[in-house]
């Protein structure tokens, strides 16, 4: 595979790869590093890439694995110490929430369990079909469907609860 072909087939994925890595690593610089490493790994496999059916899901599954490995590596550098102070750790959703106006509701997603968060990101942010999510995560389609349904219901309930609480606050203050 020529470098030009490789660029054409993979470079357009860079933002998706970055978002997915950032979701895992909670840090832009680390995420960018992972994207770069993954591109280099893909390039080293260039001779066998023609056998890969879906290059996009393949690249994202590599991002997922590399990010998990990086998290493990970071933990060995005693990041646990910082983890004990959860208010210090900003998830990408939280960091969005600080910068953007819609953060308050985005925090709802960050309160889901890790698997549900990944699934919501892949389905609702990246817009993948269930079979593609299956290729990326290795989960069965049934598990994906059930967890997306649960996650969305949790989000809906929290939005409704939030709304009710706000109304109650307004009534009390008036």
């Amino acid at each position, binding site marked *: 595979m020529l470098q030009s072909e490789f660029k054409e087939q993979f470079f357009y994925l*860079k933002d998706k790869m*970055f978002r997915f890595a950032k979701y895992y690593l909670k840090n832009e610089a680390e995420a960018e590093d992972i994207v770069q490493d993954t591109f280099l790994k893909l390039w080293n496999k260039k001779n066998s890439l023609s056998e890969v059916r879906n290059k996009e899901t393949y690249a994202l599954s590599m991002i997922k694995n590399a990010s998990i490995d990086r998290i493990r590596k970071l933990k060995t550098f005693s990041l646990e110490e910082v983890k004990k102070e959860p208010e210090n750790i900003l998830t990408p959703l939280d960091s969005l929430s600080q910068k953007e106006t819609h953060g308050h509701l985005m925090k709802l997603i960050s309160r889901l369990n890790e698997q549900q968060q990944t699934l919501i990101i892949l389905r609702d942010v990246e817009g993948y079909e269930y079979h593609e999510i299956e290729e990326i995560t290795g989960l069965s389609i049934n598990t994906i469907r059930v967890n997306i349904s649960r996650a969305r219901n949790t989000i809906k309930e929290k939005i409704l609860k939030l709304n009710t609480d706000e109304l109650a606050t307004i009534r009390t203050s008036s």
Partner: protein
Amino acid sequence: MNWQQLEQVLDLYWEGKTSLAEEKQIKEAFLRSDIPEHLKRFTNYFAGLKQMQELKLPDSAFEEKLGKQLSDTKRFKLKNNTLFSYAAVFLVLISLSFFLINNFNTEKENFEILSPEELVFVQKHLSFMSQSLAQSISFSAQNIEKIGLINLGAQTIQSYENTYLKQMQNLNKIEYLNQSVNELESKQNKDSLK
């Protein structure tokens, strides 16, 4: 699609029973200005998802840098292959030399029955082997030195990475401390107002 239909699709959305096309319709609908009052509470959620979709890799020169790295990787790989081939030749020569030296020691007496022509031939052969061996050793020594430099570089990068990670931890702690200081100050201000 009108809002009555959209609301039905929205119900299916929360249950995880919508297709990607339907989900796209919902997301687009929540960007419209005619959202019914009772559905407005979901606007921020869908807008938030849209914002996340728009998040891009911050480094605008990323592709250019990566292109260079891809070319460098190719060169490094070629160099590595060359090193391995030199190492292989070196090993073969070493093995052959040991084999010949051993045979020479154990079958020393046999040379006594060799003709002068045969002795010259053996001498020439051994001399050639010895020269090749010397060249290989010198070449390998140079390459081993290069490998040492590469390893040193990798170690330096690793140590930079460790320092960077420690810095990150410290920054997090400083941020936490700053927050605490701010909270304390605001509490003190409130107390003084009281």
